[in-house]
């Protein structure tokens, strides 16, 4: 690698040993055939694991394919019926609405703010204490979902849950009374580590001299934050928000805690798809909803990327 970087090949004439009629147009000087050979394995992987499943999903989405029954053996093409049905289905609307609320409160607001506050306050802590807090936050992020789900069930259990013991509210069913709030708090707890790490790095890029100047001219904390810190980390904020929004939008872990219940009150889109496609066996409909979800993902991504470009 190091040897190659010495010579920017595009500006070099073609090697003397192999004179060419045309100068190489490619930067690496590989030639079309070899370049294609290098890219081929990656393209093949993308085709097999990304393009093909995506097209497959589109195809299943226009059939009435089911997991069992006659339609599993002989699915029929039903055109856009599945999409029409989804867009007119109150359960789907409800699910989409829940997902947006879930993303807004747990990722965009919750993880962002908590992650930022942690990163900012930790920078002033003693290193030992800081490492302890950081490790704890990271732990929530690292532990496997199934174990985490079990811990949260034990925490929120109605009869013998830790929370009920602490608050002396035995018999209070948190997951039934406040299901959405529960999984929002759960997701904030679960995902804050990423925002904290990203903001820790971002805050280090703010020049101390500027902070010092702000302090000298008597700027308040809020003013410093708004006029000195934020302009430096704007890009990080958008990148972070984009990533955690998409992750949260596609997150399936809440299923392990509430299974979408009670009565669909935590049935966010990934759970809705699982419940209709796998448990309910309606593969065709599930595929159609998956595609709708993919489109929403793209819209979110494009929205943030636009924002990112404008602000720069």
């Amino acid at each position, binding site marked *: 690698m190091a040897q190659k970087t010495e010579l920017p090949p595009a500006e070099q004439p073609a090697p003397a040993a192999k004179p060419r009629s045309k100068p190489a147009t490619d930067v690496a000087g590989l030639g079309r055939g070899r370049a294609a050979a290098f890219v081929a394995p990656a393209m093949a992987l993308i*085709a097999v694991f990304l*393009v*093909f499943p995506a*097209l*497959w999903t589109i*195809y*299943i989405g226009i*059939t009435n*394919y*089911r*997991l*069992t*029954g*006659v*339609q*599993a*053996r*002989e*699915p029929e093409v039903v055109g856009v019926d599945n999409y029409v049905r989804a867009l007119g289905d109150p359960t789907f609307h409800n699910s989409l609405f829940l997902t947006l609320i879930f993303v807004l409160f747990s990722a965009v607001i919750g993880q962002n703010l908590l992650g930022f506050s942690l990163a900012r306050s930790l920078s002033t802590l003693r290193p030992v204490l800081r490492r302890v807090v950081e490790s704890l936050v990271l732990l929530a992020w690292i532990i496997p979902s199934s174990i985490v789900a079990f811990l949260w*069930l034990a925490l929120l259990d*109605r*009869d013998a849950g830790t929370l009920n013991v602490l608050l002396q509210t035995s018999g209070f*069913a948190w*997951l*039934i009374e406040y299901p959405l709030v529960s999984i929002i708090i759960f997701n904030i707890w679960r995902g804050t580590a990423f925002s904290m790490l990203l903001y820790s790095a971002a805050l280090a890029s703010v020049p101390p001299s500027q902070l010092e100047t702000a302090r000298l001219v008597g700027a308040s904390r809020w003013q410093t934050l708004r006029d000195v810190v934020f302009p430096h980390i704007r890009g990080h904020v958008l990148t972070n928000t984009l990533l955690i929004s998409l992750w949260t939008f596609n997150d399936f872990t809440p299923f392990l*805690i*509430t*299974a979408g*219940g*009670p*009565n669909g009150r935590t049935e966010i889109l990934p759970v809705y798809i699982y419940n209709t496609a*796998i*448990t*309910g*066996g309606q593969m065709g409909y599930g595929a159609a909803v998956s595609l709708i979800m993919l489109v929403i993902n793209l819209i979110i991504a494009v929205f943030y990327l636009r924002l990112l470009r404008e602000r720069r």
Partner: protein
Amino acid sequence: MRRTVRLIAVTTGLALAATGCLGGTSEEQTDTERGAEATEVTLTIAANAVSGGKNAEEADWIENYVIPEFVAAQEAEGVDVTVEFQSSGVDDEDYKSKIALDLRTGSGADIVSLDGIWVGEFAEAGYILPLTEVVGDTVEEWDGWEQIPDAVQANMSFNDERYGVPAGSDGRVLFYNKELFAQAGLPEDWQPTSWTEILDAARALQGIDGVTPIQLNAGTAMGEATTMQGVLPLLVGTGERIYDEDGGTWQGNTQNIRDVLGFYQTVYGEELGDPTLQQEAQGRDKSFAEFAAGTIGILMEGDYFWRSVIEPTQGVAPMANRDEVVGFTRLPAMEPGSGIEEQDFVSMSGGGGRVLNPATEFPQQAWELLTFMNSADATIELIGDGARLTQREDVNSEILADDPMLSFIAEEVVPLSAYRPGLAVYPQISVALQQATLDVVTGMPPEEAAAKYQQAVEAALGGADDIASD
């Protein structure tokens, strides 16, 4: 740019060509004698049973009896057999998804446990085949068939063809806690004759602190348990089956459905039952644990509850003093004589069984193992000291006298029992019923829930033609 377009076009073309095969089951292996002469054979058994957990007795039986005995017997014949057990201990719906995917992809165990109500949809999907197509005519020659009553064989049949060997049957009764009944001044030998009498007993139990008088399975989280140990037994008590075989119609928004939902409304509206529990993801396990802890008065369950849940040593929620404390009584019709066939008491029966995976490498040996598992000796070994209505009449008559619960189910309950329709669409109707009970439990009036249920049934059947409503 043009190249990109061409690339996309080619990729799309290839993908579409490949997708053309969706659904069309790959050409099945049709040689029933394949692998019959092999001297090294590997067979796998899959069941929703796990040692130390769900259906532990079955799991232990497979691991400690079936596998060693079968392997030894085959060894004597010079065949080196390895039998593996794929255990699961999950909700029935999850197990169903798993084996559907297994069978769909031509993988999975050679012998697979299946609930009887899944046979129709699995058969229609081509995931399972009639036994004669997998194994050949030797199936008809098995002497075990004459020991299995037709009604029980129907559990594992579809369109009059046998797809598997049934593994026994069951019945639904009301279990009640005699100690709580004594505290509430209710008779220890309780025999309610109408829904009203059930409610009266529940109201009497309401006076005891910290006790849920009656827990009636409801909601979608419990899955089929809601339908089979809740809605359907009540429905047959109103005089209608969920599916009328003669008329070919399903129950829609009828008075009978509204009566059943009305009963739910009374139970949960008056807080005779705990509505929160019915919404919890682990609600059924909790109802087991609470009954075992003596905080639920009355629970409608199958005999499974008696032999696998509160069983003193191996149950998932063991009750050491089960035999003294727990009473069981038949489920009354809504009013005396209002049940199907003008019965005073009603029940629902079901049962699962084992099928052969059509993709098995060794159909003959798999069938041999399956018949071994359903032999009289193996069946007696399975039930051990427990109580259970087996699929075999010879075994039943041998052990019937010993156990009060078993003889009660066999003599008093099963003759009154109704069965679920073996149609592929049934599971969707079942989910609609579960949703209707959930709606009522969470406060929707029965009329509204029944109307919503009717819509769901119409969606499942693709129209209102085959639906009874009034």
